[in-house]
């Protein structure tokens, strides 16, 4: 398989034809395990037997090249539960299949995929937590976002929202009393890093078992920032009420990118054509957002390795401010943009346009010098290299197992970028490169982000040129979209964009009303965070912190 993965041209993966994926060939491959066929907008769907999940997924992974379990959606119908495994390929993410696993309404359970993909461990825990599907043979089926004491599963229609939740608070209990030792090894010590800790980038709790200064095991405990984003989106109407929410997932100024994830999914679902002019504006805004997000990632990583609000942190914040100002001019907001609309953007570029282009160009012209300064201060600093090179190793095979995407995957040499591989917006018309680094370590991940800033700058530059030349009478920023959007009933779609942290996907199922019946967010940070154990175990505490910093997680997006 490894040969095939590296040479996509010579792969004779099952079902790959010139026109795309041939569902029949895949159905043949899966044989008796398929009990029905569906057609999702993005991919063919195969309904399989609940006890054949492992078998089917392993076959698809090993024989058809679907090495990326992108997302797992659990949902409840009036007569059954359903788990949908959205699978695609790292080599060509346009090759997608949806594996639909139905399970009975009275006792929802089906086989677990955890033995095939490591990323399924967390994703199935989430489906169990929120929807209540039991996964047989799952190694560690516990709640992941909600507290262990939570009663019921909130994304089911029989969930009683008014019932009191029992959270046992033992007064004056010393939480450290019981855990001084790891049960297997009396020489170890459990340290709770977080939820209040300077380096957890939000409210993250790492249950870390230390052997001296070394990390024996680390288990991220998430959910402190769970804000029911999926359910809130299910309660909003497609047209206007959902768009403000994506800004709040990855709230580190990556709002434009998040909005695009929803816009792309909903537009494809409702078959809305976006005017080209609006696509160029979107592309430009998204890349400005990406620069701002990567600058902050750089700043906080420097903070983790340097230890104080040092020069790099402040410099990066200063330079991020410039992109934020550009975005503020464009959208009227600094962080929570709410600038995208289904079918276009909220408004045209700010007047006078020349002034805006001028500011953009000034920023772009100054950027190379600034990046040089970062390279001087950071990447060419020998102590920095001592700290980051060959620490937090994430080999590409393991990264794929965990469904890692974005700079984390590209820092491990995985050439995967949805902007190029599954084009949307105006990206395929522009001249830019996907950045990868082969080091698989903390240093590579930082370097990838810094080089991506350069590529984003190239994209913005080309967009500015295009926008400046755009004929005045063709500046159409918004397609004609009905006031109330009601996509066809029983249509399903999973669409993803390349957000700042990786593949930000959204699954929407429509039931014919003006609100989604199921709205599932595939968060890149959620999947990337799962790789922390892989990177940190056996390393020293400082490397655990550096690895966490290099993942660049935002808890708002992890917990949603």
């Amino acid at each position, binding site marked *: 398989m490894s040969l095939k993965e590296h040479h996509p041209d010579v792969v004779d993966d099952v079902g790959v034809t010139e026109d795309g994926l041939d569902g029949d060939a895949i159905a043949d491959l899966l044989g008796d395990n398929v009990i029905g066929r569906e057609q999702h907008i993005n991919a063919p769907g195969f309904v399989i037997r609940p006890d054949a999940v492992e078998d089917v997924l392993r076959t698809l992974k090993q024989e058809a090249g679907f090495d990326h379990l992108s997302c797992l959606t659990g949902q409840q119908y009036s007569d059954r539960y359903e788990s949908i495994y959205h699978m695609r390929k790292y080599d060509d993410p346009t090759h997608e299949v949806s594996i639909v696993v139905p399970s009975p309404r009275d006792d929802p359970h089906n086989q677990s995929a955890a033995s095939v993909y490591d990323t399924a461990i967390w994703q199935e825990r989430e489906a169990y937590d929120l929807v209540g599907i039991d996964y047989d043979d799952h190694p560690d089926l516990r709640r992941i976002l909600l507290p262990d004491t939570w009663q019921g599963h909130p994304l089911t229609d029989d969930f009683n929202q008014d019932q009191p939740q029992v959270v046992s608070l033992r007064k004056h209990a010393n939480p450290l009393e019981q855990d001084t030792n790891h049960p297997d090894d009396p020489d170890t010590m459990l*340290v709770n890093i977080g939820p209040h800790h300077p380096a957890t980038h939000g409210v993250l709790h790492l249950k870390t078992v230390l052997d001296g200064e070394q990390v024996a095991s680390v288990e991220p405990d998430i959910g402190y920032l769970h804000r029911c984003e999926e359910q809130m989106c299910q309660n909003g109407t497609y047209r206007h009420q959902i768009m403000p929410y994506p800004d709040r997932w990855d709230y580190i100024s990556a709002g434009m990118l998040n909005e695009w994830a929803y816009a792309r999914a909903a537009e494809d679902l409702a078959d809305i054509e976006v005017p080209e002019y609006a696509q160029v504006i979107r592309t430009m805004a998204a890349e400005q957002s990406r620069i701002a997000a990567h600058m902050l990632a750089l700043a906080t990583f420097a903070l983790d390795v340097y*230890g104080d609000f040092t020069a790099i942190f402040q410099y990066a914040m200063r330079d991020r401010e410039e992109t934020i100002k550009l975005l503020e001019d464009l959208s009227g907001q600094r962080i929570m943009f709410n600038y995208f609309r289904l079918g276009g953007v909220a408004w045209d570029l700010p007047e006078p346009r020349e002034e805006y282009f001028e500011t953009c160009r000034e920023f772009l012209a100054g950027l190379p010098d600034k990046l040089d300064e970062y390279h001087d*201060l950071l990447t060419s600093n020998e*102590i920095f290299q001592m*700290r980051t090179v060959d620490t937090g190793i994430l080999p590409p095979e393991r990264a794929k197992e965990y469904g890692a995407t974005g700079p984390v995957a590209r820092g491990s040499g995985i050439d995967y970028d949805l902007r190029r591989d599954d084009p949307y917006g105006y990206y395929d018309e522009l001249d830019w490169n996907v950045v990868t680094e082969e080091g698989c370590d903390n240093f590579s991940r930082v370097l990838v982000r810094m080089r991506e800033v350069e590529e984003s700058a190239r994209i913005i530059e080309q967009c500015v040129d295009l926008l400046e030349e755009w004929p005045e009478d063709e500046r159409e920023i918004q397609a004609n979209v009905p006031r109330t959007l009601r996509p066809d009933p029983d249509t399903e779609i999973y669409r993803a964009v390349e957000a700042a942290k990786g593949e930000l996907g959204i699954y929407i199922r429509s039931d014919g009303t003006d609100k989604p019946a199921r709205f599932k967010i595939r968060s890149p940070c959620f999947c990337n965070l799962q790789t922390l154990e892989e990177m940190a175990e056996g390393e020293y505490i*400082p490397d655990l912190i550096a690895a966490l910093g290099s993942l660049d997680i935002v808890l708002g997006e992890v917990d949603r």
Partner: protein
Amino acid sequence: MQSAPLPETMANLLGLDPEGPIVIFVMAIIASAVIASALLGLVAVSGIWGKRKITAAFTDRIAVNRVGPFGLLIIVADAVRLLSKELIIPDGVDRPAWDLGPLIMVFSSIAGFAVIPMGAGVQIADPEVGLVYVFAMASTASVGLVMAGYASNNKYSFLGGLRAVAQNLAYEIPLVLTGASVVIFAGSLQMSEIVAAQQGSLLGPIPQWYAFVNPFAFGLFMVANLAEVGRNPFDVPEAPTEIVAGWQTEYSSVYFVLAYLSEFLHIFLGGAIIATIFLGGPAGPGPAILGIVWFLVKIMAVYLFTQWARSAVPRVRIDQMIEIGWKGMLVLSFVNLVLTAVIVGVMV
């Protein structure tokens, strides 16, 4: 150049007999109080106000500028703020040790100043083993760190305490050995003698300071001193992003002030040692009375260096730090010591 220690000078000025044990005892206490107060004032200005201004300058910010001229009254505001905070004593702390930790740290750094000749006759005592005494005092702080780390009943404090010991062991030896190479040059452990040995010119306008005589030793000492005072790249005992605040995690209010104070005093003591044994002590142009000014300038230069390192240099990992100490610095400091001995032996 040699002048009597400060208590004797004061006794003479007051017309008292400096040989009388009670007189000299009282005078020593007064002199110590004066110097300690001056030091605290120095810390107040440079620790509360100066640190902010310096770091801000390095990191492209403005820092305090609203309270009083140049924001100087922030010192008063901060003092009130820090002292009026609630002193939180966590459950299960080992009381006498937990209380003593910060006190020992402050005591050790202030006591070190007793033998430092600051110019203009400001030196409380001038024992023949002055350099040994000051090193001994400076490293007593480690005891305080361990007490604070162990007694806090907090895992971060515990880790910080362990790191502090490991770090001090790894760097104290190179520090002392490099200091010993100066002793070989000067032929004395007495602080005033070491200062006196640096008078005169080495080459044209360059004074005969040991920093110029042996720049290698000076560099080693500066690096070891960064570790000794726990500043980047060697701030592992506190390492805010790793172990929260290390040994000082559980200290609040007055105890935090003491911990903070001891850090700055320690930096100044390090600066004072460097100024004395490498930078000619109070030597400088102008009349001898200006010596104390030059001395303060030198201490501030070392302080500035530590703040610069803090703003610009990443922190090394604990194992890397131990490695640098035991495998690099220790070897280099032995090499330096032997070379110095050979050179001095051949020359003299």
